[in-house]
């Protein structure tokens, strides 16, 4: 029970980390953790490992209750030969995922390992493969959460990548498929661990990580908070909680937050905070593709997934990165019965040669695919701009929104007045004595006729034009009437999503 012994534990603490068992104690309700395979013996036969004592083979496995709800865990023990992944270590981890799937309970993987145990060769490699296979087969059945609380190097990095969420601890964690020495030897690049695969890199640039947390305790607290929004498996609804926030609460200052001038910016977080219960919003990937915001919240106690453009960053335009971020979140919500709330203020997909070369057509289509595929309740509010493909990609009624509401500041249209007027009245403007005056006049005419919310509402693209102060009450009513929505995809093996 002491892991790798007092000296190794002291070293673990000195590096700011809790031990594998301390993490488990902190995560589970007191007295509920039940361990299995404590006595599993390692299978190393070479290089003297056959004579070595490897407590629990470097990983603690079991189940317990987190806020009263059963959850499986495997927690790698860095104090035992650096938590290396040997064959029995891997078998224990695989068994944990197998049990979690069979019992329909989430699995949490606490990663803190030096990587594959080289002396066990194929025993380690093959078990990696078996673990990947299990993550994939369990995907969409049970939530799988990876906590990176130390190193995760080499092939093992693909285990978290195949799970649903990845949290990384500041300073003590990193993930890469090859560490600095190998990188230097093979591609001659000199780089340290933090810059190769530290939390900052993965939270802001690669998008591998979903959240950076301050230390071990914050990581475990954040995990408990995430679990509070998730069902135990795909056959359950997410947990309802009384929040004490009135569904009829109005946001008096919403008119000041969303500027009427479409060229002015605002932070959509302010809108989200005012419409969800008690302003509590659990944001996923807050530092990656910040032009789009995703996360979990509650509305009148019911869990919802929020997808919102953020005009503050890149005018809220949809680019390659944010399309991927949104599509992955939408698909998670759909798999686990979390209704979607979509807040639109989108000027368009990002245009230009850079965006085209990055493959905006291929990646942008992921959002269209994810929304069209989703059968959970889908409720959309057009806060302001809703232009062209961006309007469809943020879930218009055509992509399956059950209800769509528009604020008086909304602008739903195929093309903005400037672009449209240039095409429609090019000759007239050129022939005019006052081209700029004619242009302005045609702009206004076009705006009043086609961009005005009453035009799209008149054609049933919008269910109602609402007062900005009433976004919350309107959404709560629409959500509650949608909770038992029935929708089904045609029978198929699976769709061919543009991945």
């Amino acid at each position, binding site marked *: 029970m002491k892991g790798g012994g007092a000296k190794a534990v002291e070293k673990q603490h000195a590096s700011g980390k809790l031990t594998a068992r301390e993490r488990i104690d902190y995560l589970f309700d007191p007295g509920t953790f039940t361990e299995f395979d404590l006595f599993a013996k390692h299978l190393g036969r070479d290089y003297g490992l056959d004579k070595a004592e490897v407590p629990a083979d470097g990983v603690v496995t079991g189940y317990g209750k987190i806020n009263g709800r059963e959850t499986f865990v495997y927690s790698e023990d860095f104090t035992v030969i650096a938590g290396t992944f040997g064959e029995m270590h891997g078998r224990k981890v695989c068994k944990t995922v197998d049990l979690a799937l069979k019992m329909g309970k989430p699995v949490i993987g606490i990663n803190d390992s030096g990587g594959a145990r080289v002396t066990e060769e194929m025993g380690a490699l093959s078990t990696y493969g078996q673990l990947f296979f299990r993550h994939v087969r369990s995907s969409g059945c049970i939530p799988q959460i990876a906590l990176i609380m130390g190193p995760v190097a080499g092939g093992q990095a693909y285990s978290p990548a195949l799970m649903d969420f990845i949290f990384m601890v500041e300073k003590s964690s990193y993930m890469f498929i090859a560490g600095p020495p190998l990188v230097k030897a093979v591609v001659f690049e000199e780089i340290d661990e933090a810059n190769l695969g530290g939390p900052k890199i993965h939270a802001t640039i690669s998008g591998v990580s979903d959240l950076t947390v301050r230390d071990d305790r914050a990581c475990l607290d954040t995990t408990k908070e995430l679990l509070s929004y998730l069902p135990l498996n795909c056959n359950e609804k997410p947990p309802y909680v009384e929040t004490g926030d009135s569904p009829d609460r109005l946001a008096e200052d919403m008119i000041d937050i969303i500027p009427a001038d*479409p060229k002015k910016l605002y932070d959509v977080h302010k809108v989200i905070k005012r419409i969800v219960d008690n302003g509590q919003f659990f944001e996923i990937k807050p530092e990656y593709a910040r032009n789009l915001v995703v996360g979990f919240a509650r509305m009148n106690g019911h869990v919802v997934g929020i997808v919102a453009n953020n005009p503050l960053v890149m*005018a809220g335009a949809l680019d390659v990165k944010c399309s991927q971020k949104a599509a992955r979140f939408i698909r998670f919500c759909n798999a686990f019965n979390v209704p979607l709330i979509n807040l639109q203020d989108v000027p368009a997909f*990002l*245009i*230009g040669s*850079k965006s085209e070369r990055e493959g905006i057509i291929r990646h942008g289509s992921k959002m269209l695919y994810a929304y069209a595929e989703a059968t959970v309740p889908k409720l959309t509010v057009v806060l302001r701009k809703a232009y062209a493909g961006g309007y469809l990609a943020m879930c218009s009624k055509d992509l399956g929104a059950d209800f769509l509401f528009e604020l008086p500041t909304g602008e739903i249209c195929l093309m903005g007045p400037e672009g449209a007027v240039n095409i429609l009245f090019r000759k007239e403007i050129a022939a005019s004595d006052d081209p700029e005056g004619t242009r302005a006049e045609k702009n206004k005419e076009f705006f009043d006729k086609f961009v005005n919310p009453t035009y799209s509402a008149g054609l049933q693209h919008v269910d109602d034009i609402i007062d900005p102060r009433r976004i919350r009450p309107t959404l709560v009513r629409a959500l509650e009437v949608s909770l038992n929505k029935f929708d089904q995809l045609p029978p198929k093996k699976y769709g061919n999503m543009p991945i």
Partner: protein
Amino acid sequence: MAEEMTAPMIGKIIKVHVSVGSHVDEDEPVVTLEAMKTEMPLVSPINGVVKEVRVQPGQLVEADDVLAVIE
């Protein structure tokens, strides 16, 4: 330490709020970029002094172009 401010996306500079040598606070607008039908104030990442301004109003910029250097 000098911080380079880069364009987040392709667009047109419509206003330069500072000049070389002037002091800027963190989050104070340095230039305004017009793109995707929106005017975006691009703010200083740090408290500091403007060392270089590499753009002028009306100039077109590409994503990642350096707009100004703050020290």
